[in-house]
């Protein structure tokens, strides 16, 4: 294809198509609308369906059902829409539905500033729905990563039969960048594991808690069952505490035990550095400049950029925190992932946030100030 001048949202649509996404439902909202526009153009080209739903609840309902009927589904919205997705995310969790949910974050709360960027939905994503079960969320920093991580989000959704969030922001979604998507290396396309025809189908079958149940689609070779209610492996309502706990353990274990496999990080460690900057999303690009400037002034500083936010890449974070005395966590919110770093930081590591929500990017200078106060 060669170099193009693309906005992040178009790269998301292209990543979805690369992942053979053949179902999209969304409701217009700045700054996510253009994903809907691109998908309306692209999805039908492979026999897919893209539709503007009547609201965000319908967007999720359509996608969940389509995914259970064998489609590779995606939806996209921004903060106000995620609020309306909330209950349905739980449905996708309890039903073990593979699908991708894009959040192009904008300044909140509420309507906030529709055309301004923020990273205010980090913990909201983690605790997006009732029950508090683990969530998967990836966060791109560039237009190229928007493409790559959308594709990878589909892979994770399919591998773990789970909803997967792509947490981008206005600052990436509607910023154009020169990029060559073909140069981006992608893993092989993953597809959900299927039950063989002729074998009995239990929609939530597992032997070990962490196993991902094999799938059979509505309209396929087996009679399928899907339910929002607490159920057993066969998808039948149950209230037996033992079975209920077993199922909850399963939903949690299949994601938590795979945290290391899902961990996508970029580490730039400097020997002897006592400070590490831990960042993600658009702010990680300011962090990159800050690191460069700090080093050019003779300061020693390491950097860890997280592409996987949830489940927390604990091993990578712990290794980055090893040997430092100071961790700087810049975020375009009032300190959200900071809580996660504080939770993991060993005694003797001071965790410092660089936080603002005035809709402007956090500048390299602001980060440098925290590196060298």
């Amino acid at each position: 294809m060669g170099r193009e001048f693309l906005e992040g949202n178009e790269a998301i649509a292209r990543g979805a198509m690369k992942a053979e996404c053949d179902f999209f439902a969304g409701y217009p909202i700045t700054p996510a609308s253009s994903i809907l526009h691109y998908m309306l153009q692209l999805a039908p080209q492979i026999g897919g369906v893209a539709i503007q739903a009547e609201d965000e609840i319908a967007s999720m309902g359509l996608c969940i059902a389509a995914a259970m009927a064998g489609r590779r589904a995606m939806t996209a919205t921004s903060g106000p829409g995620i609020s309306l997705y909330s209950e349905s995310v739980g449905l996708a969790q309890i039903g073990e539905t593979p699908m991708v949910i894009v959040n192009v974050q904008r300044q909140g709360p509420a309507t906030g500033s529709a055309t301004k960027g923020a990273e205010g939905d980090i913990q909201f994503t983690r605790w997006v729905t009732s029950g508090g079960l683990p969530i998967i969320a990836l966060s791109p920093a560039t237009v190229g990563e928007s493409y790559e991580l959308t594709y990878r989000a589909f892979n994770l959704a399919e591998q773990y039969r789970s909803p997967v969030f792509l947490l981008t922001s206005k600052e990436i979604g509607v910023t154009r960048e020169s990029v060559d998507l073909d140069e981006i290396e992608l893993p092989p396309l993953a597809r959900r594991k299927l039950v063989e025809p002729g074998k009995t189908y239990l929609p939530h079958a597992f032997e070990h808690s962490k196993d991902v149940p094999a799938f059979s689609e509505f309209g396929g070779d087996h009679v399928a069952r899907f339910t929002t209610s607490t159920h057993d492996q066969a998808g039948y309502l149950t209230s037996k505490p033992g079975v209920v706990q077993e199922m909850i353990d399963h939903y949690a274990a299949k994601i938590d035990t795979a945290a290391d496999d899902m961990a996508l990080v970029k580490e730039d460690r400097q020997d002897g550095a006592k400070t590490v900057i831990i960042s993600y999303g658009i702010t990680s690009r300011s962090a990159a400049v800050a690191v460069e400037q700090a080093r050019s002034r003779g300061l020693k500083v390491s950097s860890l950029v997280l592409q996987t936010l949830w489940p927390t890449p604990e091993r990578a974070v712990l290794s980055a925190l090893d040997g430092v005395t100071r961790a700087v966590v810049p975020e375009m919110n009032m300190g959200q992932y900071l809580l996660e770093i504080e939770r993991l930081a060993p005694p003797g590591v001071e965790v410092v946030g660089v936080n603002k929500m005035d809709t402007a990017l956090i500048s390299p200078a602001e980060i440098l100030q925290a590196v060298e106060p």
Partner: protein
Amino acid sequence: MVEHRTTYMTDAIGPLPYCPGCGHHFVIKALDKALVNLQLDPKEVVIVTDIGCIGLSDRYFVTNAFHGLHGRSITYGCGLKLARPELTVIVLAGDGGCGIGGAHLLNVARRNIGVTLIVANNFNYGMTGGQHSVTTPVGGVTTTTPWGNVEGPMDLCGTAVAAGAAWVARSTMFEKNLADTMTDAIKQPGFAMLDVWELCTAYYSPRNQLKKKDVDTLLDRYDCKLGVLADNPRPEYSESYREAYKAGSTATRTKTSIEQRFTSKVTKQTGIVIAGNAGQKIKSTATLFAQAAMSAGLAATQKDDYPITVMTGHSLAEIILSPQRIDYTAIETPDHLVLISAEGLERIRSRIGDLPQTSTIYTDENLDVPPTGARVVRLPLAATAAKIGRLSIAVIALGAVLKDTGMFPTEAFATAITMFQGAKIAEVNLKAVEAGASLVHPDETSSAP
């Protein structure tokens, strides 16, 4: 040969869980009979249930079952049908589900997605303890209308008809032909709704002395007829969707990739802000300019700033060009500020005073630029645009910037215009590049006052 089924229900999990005399028994039995009438493959049928007592029923069937959130069953039915149009999708919802999911009812009817909606309408929320619903009659006593309901009931059938439903019928739990009406509903290729009035023997019936004969009185009171109320077949959504796509999507993807054909003199990250107003093609011109820079081997980013009502007010574009990767995408100090209109100037006015000597402001000659440390180049932008084309003012300005800075050849800009714009517009804009470039004479540019 497929075996003839005499029932689509299983007794493996025991009898239906409903209160004695509950109308849901009748609806479920009628659905079983309708399926027997149709002799469909259970694997090709999905029973989608809403939340509520009615939603406890799907697991008694041998078909596929989809039990989702309260009020959203229609959306699941639609998703299944859009994904696999060959499936028979039957949605069972209560009056409560139709209330909270009202938007979905209107939209499935309007879109004509081929699901069958069966409403088990018992005038209240059975499952949660007999609260009033959107169909509770005026005066109806419920847990939440202890002194009688003062809200007018919603006529579900009338609502569906008004929303354009292809097929609508009303029946009651007592009608002898309920299963046959249901069979007809399921057979419809488009959206079909069957509203079944029934008794909730735990709450609504005892509190309101609603018995079999009273259902007829209620029908009369609200002038509600039984039977088929609308039968206007039209193409089902998936069919229309495919037709529309086939007819509309003839356009092949335009080429968007850019090869390097020129060289640039840009050695460091350079920020350019173009400030104009809506209707001056600021954003699209900035994109062309950045694409031209890419053809000269540079990396580029672009961010726009404009009010949400796009056809009025300011329009700003921020471009960063760099020979290296661009990390930080904000422009703290523009190297080149291009002022095209008064509205654009107003938007950025507060940042002008602090601009250093190393920055240049290219401004229309008639704009009142506040005092600044930057070098100011005054140009007859509007006057030139009046001659060449009003929509080319940003191209003219950037033509001048290129000539003055030598960042990359004006030829690159011209090539991007030819490549990405329609022939007619490109013709005007190619002239605009030249006209812009010719406004700048290396020795004549005035510096700051």
